[in-house]
């Protein structure tokens, strides 16, 4: 009897230890580097930047490198890899100006990559017109021009005036003209398709241009943000609507985590208050935690929807893209606890590996590594970690 009792005590103690360890140790282990990333540790940023430079800038990337199965999506991912890597290089220079000379060449390669004929193809195939040839025309090209102009503006803030300044001025003027002419203030990504998240980058790029050059785009920014706050932010969930009807701006999709988490990164440069409100809405409506690992839902609770190319895989309601993009908001607003939890998830899912003086996320590929580079180096909104203000 005593022997059986002893065995039961042993098993119970073992089970309790197993549960306690699972609930605490894995997240603590995976999140152990988070504090250094939050502080802006230059050595960590440099190691990841070398990995991203190898994957995105040194290797010759092409659409065929991405196996999304849809030519347009593969083109978008190629474009996105250069975009996110370029954002990361610019942000690291904002935070550590001593990296200027070292990061200028890969940053330029990212912009050059986005300007290549192959990268422009995904937009050209949708519009039937090259986006650079159509800058002064009637078509919006919101995705290509908006995201490109955002990087050009950030590059200008970080590296100063260079040969891309003229293109930045020209695209900004075209985007402001389109915003002024649009009754719904939103521009079309592709013909008949309007996504507020892409438009956050459009207006964010206009805000960046204003910061970098001192030119006044206040009227366009005010008109855009007033309309967005009233029509494109879900009043209950306080999240960005994912897609709207181009005819009248009415919602064509649910408010979602992936669009909100990505959009608020750029929106900060046009309307920091609205960006902060979206971040608080995202945390209140979507943030969750499993065993200490942070995760962000794609759809608000009590609303359901399918996963798609924007959301990535959705597991138990938590979205891959929403979780990854939220790292930027957590760092921008100094949300240490949420940042640590999300960082732990990125570590668990990304499987980082160090090779010599560089670090790469095994499961990320060029796009995943570039996204994490951009998210982990997002500047703070209160002067922390380089705001880019000159």
């Amino acid at each position, binding site marked *: 009897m005593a*022997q059986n009792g*002893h*065995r039961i*005590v*042993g*098993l119970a*103690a*073992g*089970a*309790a*230890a*197993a*549960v*306690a*360890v*699972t609930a605490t*140790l*894995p997240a603590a*282990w*995976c999140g152990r580097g988070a504090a250094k990333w939050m502080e802006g540790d230059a050595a960590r940023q440099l190691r990841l930047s070398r990995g991203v430079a190898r994957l995105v800038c040194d290797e010759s990337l092409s659409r065929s*490198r*991405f*196996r*999304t*199965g*849809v030519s347009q*999506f*593969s083109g978008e*991912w190629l474009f996105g890899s250069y975009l996110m890597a370029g954002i990361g290089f610019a942000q690291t220079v904002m935070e550590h100006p001593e990296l200027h000379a070292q990061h200028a060449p890969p940053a330029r390669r990212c912009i050059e990559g986005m300007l290549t004929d192959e990268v422009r193809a995904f937009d050209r195939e949708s519009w039937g017109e090259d986006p650079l040839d159509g800058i002064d025309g009637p078509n919006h090209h919101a995705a290509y021009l908006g995201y490109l102009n955002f990087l050009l503006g950030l590059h200008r803030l970080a590296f100063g005036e260079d040969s891309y300044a003229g293109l930045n001025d020209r695209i900004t003027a075209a985007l402001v003209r389109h915003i002024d002419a649009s009754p719904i203030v939103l521009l079309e990504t592709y013909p008949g398709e309007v996504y507020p998240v892409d438009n956050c980058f459009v207006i964010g790029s206009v805000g960046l241009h204003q910061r970098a050059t001192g030119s006044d785009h206040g009227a366009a920014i005010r008109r855009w943000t007033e309309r967005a706050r009233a029509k494109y932010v879900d009043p209950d969930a306080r999240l960005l609507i994912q897609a709207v009807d181009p005819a009248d701006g009415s919602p064509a999709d649910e408010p979602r985590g992936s669009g909100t988490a990505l959009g608020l990164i750029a929106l900060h440069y046009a309307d920091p208050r609205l960006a902060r409100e979206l971040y608080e809405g995202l945390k209140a409506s979507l943030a969750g935690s499993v*065993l200490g690992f942070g995760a962000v839902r794609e759809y608000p609770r009590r609303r359901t929807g399918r996963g798609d*190319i924007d959301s*990535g*895989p959705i597991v138990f309601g938590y979205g*891959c893209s929403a979780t990854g993009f939220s790292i930027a908001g957590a760092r921008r607003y100094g949300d240490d606890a949420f940042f640590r939890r999300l960082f732990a998830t990125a570590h*668990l899912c990304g*499987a980082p*590996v160090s090779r010599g003086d560089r670090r*790469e996320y*095994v*499961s*990320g*590929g*060029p*796009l*995943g590594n570039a996204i994490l580079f951009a998210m982990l180096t997002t500047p703070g909104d209160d002067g922390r970690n380089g705001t880019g203000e000159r």
Partner: protein
Amino acid sequence: MSRTRWWNPRLGPVSLSVTLVVAHAVLREILSRYDVVSCVFAAGGHVPRWMLSCAGAFVVVRLSVFLLVPALLAWRLVTAAVRRIAPACPVSPETGRSRGHGEKGAL
């Protein structure tokens, strides 16, 4: 007399943990050479099945290494410690060994 058959190795918590850690290291090395994320994001008929299987196995093994292995080792450590601090037990006349102390468990 007990026989240990080659197809039925005594796989305990420690040896299972070691196996998982080794499998994790091998799969991580393999997958670092391929763009896994786009396969997982856009899983469909066009994705090579071996690559998808490899990615799926890696996910399972990595989650196991981080979530299961610490639990297994903690369980093994605590149960072994409890057994060790247990009061001395009488030797069973049937088995001829001290129950609770000399029991030979799998690794």
